[in-house]
């Protein structure tokens, strides 16, 4: 199973809300997210910028967090979502 990427910001309340859902999903399903904080680590911001062509169309044309990304398929999802939506997206990768 592919390791997925989660881009998040330390002071982003939507990211904070999603983090326990991501951890619950990891525990329940074995899916793994590589979590990258993007405002306090410039390498992570660079990584997110490098995936702009895939991420921006799913994020209102911008680079927004939280963002979830499969580097293998190029599939992405953006924003605060319900647990079941996150799970469905992750298991579909």
């Amino acid at each position, binding site marked *: 199973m592919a390791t997925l990427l989660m881009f998040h910001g330390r002071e982003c*309340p939507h990211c904070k809300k999603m983090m326990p859902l991501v951890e619950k999903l990891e525990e329940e399903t074995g899916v793994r997210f590589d979590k990258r904080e993007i405002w306090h680590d410039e390498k992570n911001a660079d990584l997110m910028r490098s995936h702009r062509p895939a991420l921006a169309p799913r994020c209102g044309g911008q*680079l927004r967090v939280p963002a979830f990304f499969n580097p293998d398929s190029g599939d992405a999802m953006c924003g605060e979502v319900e647990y079941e939506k996150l799970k469905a997206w992750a298991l579909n990768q």
Partner: protein
Amino acid sequence: MKKRYWRCFVCNDIHCGIAPPELCPTCKVFSAYVEISAGEARRILGGGPDVTMTSAEFRAAIERFTAGNEFEVNPDAEKAGMLIEGIFANEANHGLKYCPCRVRSNEWEEDLRIVCPCNFTIHETYKGVEDGECWCGLFVRRT
């Protein structure tokens, strides 16, 4: 009377005066100006990083800004506090009050669009949405 600095949240025009213009002379939007610090005005016009506005002053500035608009600062104090903390961390680390829920592109003009308050009224999370809010949630439509 001491002049202060103001930024159009739509087109980033900078105004220096005792009060903000009612109408932005560039983009023609009403009630578009939010007070900023002199340091922020200088940085937008090409200066360097120096934080001169406290978070309390910023909070007061956006409260005054929203008073003339159909939106308000999010009444969820915990959420608003976290966002303002992030906005100030971004100003200290990256030079401007960038949105904590987006990422800089490193293109100057584009990144001005994510300086808080941004022009969220055109975004899909706000425009035409009954309980709309900006992407990060610092500003919400008045109910």
